[in-house]
């Protein structure tokens, strides 16, 4: 059984000036442990797709099932990383990281130990009592990731989480996140408009069309040595091939 299953999902926004179709008839499945990238022209409804999966909004038509159930919102944690880290300046790094646990009243000793371990593993233990403003952009994004992982989510949604970073930080945070997700054995869906990011991180790439977004194509990505980090993949021979393929797809149909 796939972990996540979208079945003919459509969604439209309502406003005074009319109805905007954001997502139209999208179906796909995600297996456990997969890394999916979603890409498409800007404003095509990629973020709407994540909000639908996260259960923040409900589809007008179609169903979304997690582990076979469409009533997953109450019972399952889905991690959601936004474009900006939104670490709250009035909380210390540690208190930011445990925000989700605090909200769900799950901040017990086991959870605190888990968080502590992640802070140590990902080089933030020293900054636990610091203010978010004392962290670098990359560290902030790692803290935001730990905040998401602290709730032990079944599925991770990443909504262009690197786009606010400068290029150099972006490459290294990309590597960090990829290795963290692999180590924690997480399933993830990454929304990005950066093609090289998609090609270097994902197992499969969903190409969406212009608004209303429908699924244009699914591109399978295979590297000879799949254990490479995203940065290493960027210099692998397959990278250019997939990049060009994706570029062509977007330009002919996007």
């Amino acid at each position, binding site marked *: 059984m796939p972990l996540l299953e979208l079945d003919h999902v459509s969604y439209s926004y309502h406003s005074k000036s009319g109805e905007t179709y954001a997502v139209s008839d999208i179906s796909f499945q995600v297996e456990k442990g997969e890394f999916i990238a979603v890409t498409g022209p800007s404003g095509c409804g990629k973020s709407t797709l994540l909000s639908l999966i996260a259960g923040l909004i409900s589809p007008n038509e179609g169903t979304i099932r997690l582990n076979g159930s469409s009533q997953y919102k109450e019972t399952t944690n889905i991690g959601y990383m936004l474009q900006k880290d939104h670490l709250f300046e009035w909380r210390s790094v540690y208190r930011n990281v445990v*925000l*989700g646990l605090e909200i769900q009243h799950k901040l017990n000793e086991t959870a605190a130990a888990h968080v502590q371990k992640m802070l140590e593993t990902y080089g933030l233990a020293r900054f636990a009592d610091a203010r978010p403003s004392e962290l670098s952009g990359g560290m902030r994004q790692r803290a935001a990731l730990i905040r998401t992982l602290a709730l032990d989510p079944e599925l991770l949604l990443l909504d262009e989480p690197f786009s606010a970073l400068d290029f150099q930080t972006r490459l290294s945070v990309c590597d960090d996140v990829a290795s963290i997700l692999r180590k924690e054995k997480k399933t993830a869906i990454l929304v990005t408009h950066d093609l090289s990011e998609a090609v270097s991180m994902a197992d499969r790439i969903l190409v969406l069309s212009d608004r209303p977004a429908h699924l244009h194509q699914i591109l399978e990505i295979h590297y000879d040595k799949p254990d490479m980090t995203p940065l290493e993949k960027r210099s692998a021979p397959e990278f250019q091939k997939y990049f060009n393929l994706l570029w062509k797809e977007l330009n002919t149909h996007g």
Partner: protein
Amino acid sequence: MDNRKTSVSHQAYLDGITRRQRRIMVIRILIFVLFLALWETAVRQKWIDGFIFSSPSRVLGTFAQMWRDRSIFLHTGITLLETLTSFLLVVLIGTGFALLLWYSTELSAVLEPYLVILNGLPKSALAPLLIVWLGANMKSIIVAGISVAIFGTILNLYTGFSETDPDEIKLIYTLKGTKKDVLTKVIIPGTVPLLISIMKVNIGLCLVGVVIGEFIGAKQGLGYLIIYGSQVFKLDWVIMSIVILCIIAMGLYAMINCAEKLYLKKR
């Protein structure tokens, strides 16, 4: 900063800053002293009439005499008490009401024009009404103080609440939070700096309202002393009261500043 020895040019730069600050301080004090000296001399040389314009020495004399008969403590204390009470009520009622408006967008849509009109209304126009309705007592003066500051507080705080980054709210919902979590984890802590800056304005506004109230319906307080003094031509009282009001305004502002520093250090 690192611990290397400061270079000569940097030391000169730092010295320059210190000198500039000292110069500004000296000029400030000088202006004050010169003003007092000029005022005193003008009265002594009969350039202006001390009976109408008072003078620093007459103000000091009046102050000393009222200190001895303790009446100064009564008037200052009453005004201070009324100001602080109305200020506290403004903060409590204003925050509560702004939260209510944030919670119910429908209510805020309904009430918005009323709030805008009430905020724009010169509140001194209300003071005579309050005296008639509530009587010439402390209650109506406190209400007068509240009326000056409350509507602006509600509007500004509500705007602050509504301008919270929608993504920060979305974050709480992705962590399975409720509207209550949005309120306690994002909206309230996020608007504390705004609340403090609103409080800085409010404390002065409350003082204005209280003095207006005392003008019209009081038997005690600095506002009363100003009105009564002007009616019986004891202008020494009037000017002394104004000076005390200046000092109170400064003190109250400093108090909020202290609270702000404390908050910034604590968080």
